[in-house]
């Protein structure tokens, strides 16, 4: 704490001395949705918390960074990073080839998977006995997805027979599933469980089919996003994440919200 205060003081005086200096290298702004429980969200008293927030703090401590948080809607996340509204994305963003064309990623710090949630009385077997989705069964089914997510890519390519409806937020997905405007949604199963299925009055819905972890679509996992051309920062972030895996911090963060860890220990190698 003392060191941090000292650092704050030093950077503050430095800022005072060079009034028009560019932002000090140690201070980085972090973009996240702030509404994506339990990964990044504000508690009832307005404190930002969650797994992503814990990871960002763990990384900041190792690298001696000072962080400032910026709340940003999901579909504007990458444009905002490119427009220099913040410097890092720590918002449960999966590492994908498509996104890598625009931005860089650190190594992964969380699993990235999807699973469907359906009405129990849907009366159709969406998956065959081997657990593969059956395109014929999806014909005419209304599927709610979040705009520009890995889930919507996966659905368009894998099950084009379904009628996809795109939403702007995760809450809207659940609302319209409850309201009967959609039959099925696909999202992160950890989140669907915490935010929807475990809540009272939602026992008419269930996780449908197996966890889908198609690496081609969902990538190797969730990483920290940053603008391209900052190799040193990227490697430092990856190194810090590996340290967090090795010293058990990452598991500790996960256990606050889930009964299991949500990363792969091999990522530290």
């Amino acid at each position, binding site marked *: 704490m003392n060191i941090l205060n000292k650092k704050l003081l030093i950077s503050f005086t430095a800022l005072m001395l060079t009034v028009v200096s560019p932002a000090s290298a140690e201070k980085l702004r972090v973009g996240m949705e702030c509404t994506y429980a339990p990964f990044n969200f504000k508690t009832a008293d307005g404190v930002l918390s969650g797994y992503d927030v814990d990871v960002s703090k763990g990384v900041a401590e190792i690298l001696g960074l000072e962080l400032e948080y910026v709340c940003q809607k999901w579909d504007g996340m990458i444009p905002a990073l490119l427009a220099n509204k913040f410097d890092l994305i720590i918002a449960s963003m999966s590492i994908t080839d498509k996104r890598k064309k625009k931005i860089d990623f650190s190594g992964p710090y969380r699993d990235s998977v999807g699973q469907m949630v359906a009405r129990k009385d849907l009366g159709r077997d969406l998956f065959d006995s081997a657990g593969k989705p059956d395109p014929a069964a999806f014909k005419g089914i209304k599927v709610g997805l979040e705009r520009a997510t890995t889930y919507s890519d996966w659905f368009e390519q894998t099950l084009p027979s379904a009628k996809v409806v*795109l939403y702007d937020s995760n809450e809207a997905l659940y*609302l319209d599933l409850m309201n009967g405007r959609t039959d099925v949604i696909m999202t992160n199963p950890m989140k669907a469980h915490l935010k929807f299925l475990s809540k009272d009055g939602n026992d008419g819905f269930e996780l449908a089919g197996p966890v889908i972890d198609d690496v081609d679509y969902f990538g190797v996992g969730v990483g920290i996003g940053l603008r391209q051309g900052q190799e040193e920062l990227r490697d430092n972030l990856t190194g810090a994440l590996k340290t967090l895996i090795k010293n058990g911090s990452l598991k500790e963060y996960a256990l606050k919200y889930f009964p299991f860890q949500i990363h792969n220990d091999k990522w530290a190698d």
Partner: protein
Amino acid sequence: MSFDITLILDSLPKMLSGIGLTFQLLILSGVLGLLLAFVLLLMRLTEKWYFSVPAQVFIYVFRGTPILVQIFIIYYGLPQFEAIRESIFWPILREPFGCAILALTLNTGAYVSEILRGAVLAVDRGLLEAGSALGLSRNQRFIYITSPLAIRLGIPPYSNDVISLLKSTALASTITIFDMMGIARTIVAETYAPYEIFISLAIIYMIFTFFIQKGFGYFENFMSRHVKK
């Protein structure tokens, strides 16, 4: 930053494929809104409080709240009630398109009824007195004297409202409708190029507005043909 022309050329046809939906939203809610406005106008012009007070309350509510809030209440709020989901209105309210039309109609109806009332009240009293001196009844005066003059007076503010209705249709994209705005937002979310896409979209809306303006200009000329100097 570079301006990606090929990206614009690629996405223009995609965005234009939503033009039909934007048009449908505009025309349907415009026509229904005008009908609603007319009913509200008649309610307000009667001197009976049980007609005019509800109309005033309606206008106050729909002018006093943001249209985005109205869209969200209708789309996300109403289905929370079991009774609504089981009512005969559910087939309409289940569809985002029905919800958007309903919200836009109610909103534009409230505004337009005030435009119409202003136009009716602006008609010179002397003309109406002359009309009654000639033995025209109240209804005849309204049809033959007030209406043609009020229409002419109402055109400029009404065209204003149609243009703002056109732009309000873009809000329908927030409730999953794939109009031009909805398509643009999805392209932006995929290409991360908000600048190019939204600028092109803005130009499309401006071209649209130009034609609406021109159309109302001709209509105004036509209605004023007797007072030309």
